[in-house]
């Protein structure tokens, strides 16, 4: 029995996408929540949320990098 590397790559991407997806959801939920509580702070909250989204995305990117670099 042999396992195709494509399957491994697919599973790696699928599993690696779960965490960042949850993280992005949490960031978005928290941002919307805090703007709802305090609409005046929208621009500040938006900047913070975008920074956090960038940080969370990096995790997904590490997964992609590993997938691309493994032959």
């Amino acid at each position: 029995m042999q396992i195709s590397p494509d399957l491994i790559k697919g599973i790696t991407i699928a599993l690696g996408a779960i965490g960042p997806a949850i993280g992005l959801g949490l960031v978005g939920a928290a941002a919307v929540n805090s703007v709802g509580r305090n609409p005046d702070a929208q621009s500040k909250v938006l900047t913070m949320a975008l920074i956090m989204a960038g940080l969370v995305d990096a995790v997904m990117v590490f997964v992609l990098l590993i997938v691309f670099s493994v032959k």
Partner: protein
Amino acid sequence: MQSFVAETSVPLAAEPIFHIGSFGVTNSMLAGIVIVAIITLVFSVAAAKSRIRPESKLAYFVENLTEFILSSITGNFGGDEGKARRFLSLFLGLFVFILLNNLFGLLPGMGGSVYVESGGVREALLRPFTTDLNGTVALALISIGTVQYYGIKERGLFSHVRHYFSITTPWWNPMNFLLGPIEILSEIVRLLTLAMRLFGVIYAGEVLIHVIGSLTGNFAWAGTVPAILLEVFFSFIQAYLFIMLSSVYLAIGTTKDDHGSELQSSAKAKRAGASELVSSSV
């Protein structure tokens, strides 16, 4: 076995275009030099045209950009604008250089369509500096090196090193000797994550555009538009994130441990918030 299109069209390493002695000049270095020339030209023209009452649109735009960066990093330095102005040139330079490189990669002719052939292998003539891991490690080394240099300069070598070994309050607590090496390791991890994040996001974006282009076939002109717009967004976010994180590291690395007025304690509380941002990023 059919492999991903990315492995053939966007190689992980930058390829040397020509050699000076044994030193290979890669396509990413060429693009970096082009960007540096553009930045130097634009900023010197804007500096020459800058007036108190704005006359040229270019100078007005560059002034606004400078003030945006200044106000962003002033917040990270605990509202100390003098300190932020000292490091403004570094962070403005980093921001503009990273941003222009990221956007440069989205222009036509960048993804290997303008190429040189060497040994039967097509090599892209220009490749954005930030899609080369050597380049992003160099940028991260500049920012972390600045943190270390000014940390030693402002605190002194002994108290800078002592800072790593004084996490828990009584200095003789043996936990300090265990936590110290971890703190020093975290400094290296910061360097790695700064470099890997920038490289990964921009490189993965290039690959994403290639994959979508090959999936959509004849309709690549329409299919890649959303991906390119997403990449424009990520270019801004990553450039901004890089300087924000670097300035937070610099603000943490150059604080002195003197307990005093209420102003300082409020600045400290702000820095504690900043360090939370950092620890979450690591």
